[in-house]
């Protein structure tokens, strides 16, 4: 009986490793974007960059919506304090499963909080939202801090996602997704959404995916 225990345990461990929630990349909510990027990988650093109204925040919200719906806990480190809970709830994000850290423009606080929460373990997605932070401030961030954040994500298994205007982490990020607005979609008296495109910065610049960000 005891002699077969290691074999039984290895079989059991194999089952755990195949658990879909633990290993599969996260979906962005757009099949086209998932098609070119393979989804948002876990246990590493991903950058989603784009200008204001490009659809980058919509992608991030879609990621949080899917993760919280699947029962995962997520973190949003909001450097400029621009997260709107009412709109997020309308978009389907389970706010009770979201830990929101408002940093009121303090980048050092944001980095420290992201580092602590990435290493804490148990979170599916950790988002560092740098949007709106002036480039002269983000450029001061040492490269070592990005290595440290990536290492924390590798240890805890969380998908660490950085949202900003420009690439910040450089070689530390595995996936760099650049989002651009193609056009605004209007109806008679309403803003209907954005037609956007996403391209991979690192792997193949030529691969572009188009998607709609609807209101």
């Amino acid at each position, binding site marked *: 009986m005891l002699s077969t225990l290691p074999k039984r345990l290895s079989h059991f461990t194999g089952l755990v490793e195949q658990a879909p929630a633990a290993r599969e990349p996260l979906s*962005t909510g757009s099949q086209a974007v998932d098609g070119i990027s393979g989804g948002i990988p876990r246990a590493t650093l991903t950058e989603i960059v784009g200008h*204001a109204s490009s659809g980058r*925040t919509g992608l991030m919200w879609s990621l949080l919506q899917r993760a919280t719906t699947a029962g995962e806990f997520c973190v949003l480190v909001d450097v400029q304090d*621009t997260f709107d*809970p*009412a709109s997020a709830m309308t978009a389907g994000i389970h706010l009770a499963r979201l830990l929101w850290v408002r940093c*009121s423009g303090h980048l050092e*606080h944001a980095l420290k909080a992201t580092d602590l929460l990435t290493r804490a373990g148990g979170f599916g997605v950790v988002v560092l939202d740098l949007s709106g932070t002036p480039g002269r401030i983000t450029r001061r961030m040492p490269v070592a801090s990005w290595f440290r954040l990536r290492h924390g994500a590798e240890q805890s298994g969380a998908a660490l996602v950085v949202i900003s205007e420009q690439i910040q982490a450089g070689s530390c990020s595995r996936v760099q997704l650049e989002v651009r607005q193609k056009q605004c979609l209007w109806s008679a008296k309403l803003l209907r959404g954005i037609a956007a495109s996403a391209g991979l910065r690192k792997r193949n610049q030529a691969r572009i995916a188009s998607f709609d960000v609807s209101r």
Partner: protein
Amino acid sequence: MSRGEENGKPMFAALHAPGNLPVLLDCARQFSPLIEITSEDTVTFDVRGLNSLCGSLSRIANEVDRVIGVPANIAIASNPDTAVHVSRGMKGIAVIPAGQEGPTLAPLSLHLLGCPPQMGEMFQLWGIRTFGQFASLPPLGVAARLGEEGMHWQQVAQGVMRRQLRIIGESVSFARQMDLDDPILLLEPLLFLLGRFLNELCAELISRSLASNEVRLRLRLEKGAEHPVILRLPVPTTDQKMLLKLLHLELSEHPPVAAITQIRLEMEPAKPRSMQEGLFAASYPFPEKIELTVARIRHLVGPENIGSPRVLDTHKPDSFVMEPFAPSAQHPAASVPSSVRLAFRRFRPPQSATVIVERHPVHILSASARGPIQTAKGPWFTTGNWWRTDCWNREEWDVAVGRGALYRIFRDLSTEAWFVEGNYD
């Protein structure tokens, strides 16, 4: 009887040692939280489930005998009354197997039964001296002569009476207090004392199978002032290192304003958290661990800037409260995955703007949006709370500026001032 069968059935141990009630209670607490003070010299407690820890019933009895430390009679039986009567009537250790209660009780003197004095006198007149003699009387005759109460005592004498223990309700206080001869000025010696207090209190809680979800520290300062610190935890814990670190962070953030002359630390007892994790369920941060991380970040960003937002039931813009983040394994209600939705990034506070209007806004100048407005859709009017000071009355527009940057702007109709509320992204 196999050990598995023993584990499932209720078994009770009775300890009898005249004049040693505190010793009996201390001994019983080391084995079970379900304790009854049957009389001034007898304590009964539930030993169900101890088989997996100690072994057979005989071994449990021997272990109790080893722990108790004073001469005492120990009896284990399947019901409390049998255990009590055997412990009072037989010296040493007695383990009564299930089904053997009646024969074991039979030779005991009837004065041990504890029935009312009038009933005892009646037994004397009838010539009934032992449990066995009373137990063998015809039940119908007992019912006719002694009524329902007589039947009850006959069942006790037969060893078949089942009842629950009358659990003692202790009002135990988990607190430590120290008056200091030399007032404490620095945090380090204070933490040294708090660490010692937490160590002792956590050990006491653990010995009673309890934990704590609230820690109250009261520091009396020179000149009579007080400095209270209250830690409310999302789940009960006995992790003294974590509690000490939380107190450290709290005292670093809000240090006492004068030297400390008295320390009082109280821990509110609560049942420890117990739950079964799902094998394929999504992982989640353990509340005990995340509380310390959240406390560190709270120290950085302020208590109002970390938590889970809860949207308030009002149409007033940006109405929400921050609630403590309390992760649990509970799965949320499933919702259909939607497509990528337009997000709104809110400027706090709204940015003041200068807007030129020609039937609709045509030009804007603000910190984030500046230049001609390409497209403007609106207006949308919202108003509310007109009877209160926090009322709002505004005209909203969605506008595209420059190369397609989308903003929501509004005009406060009470002041005619324009603001940029945020941008769509």
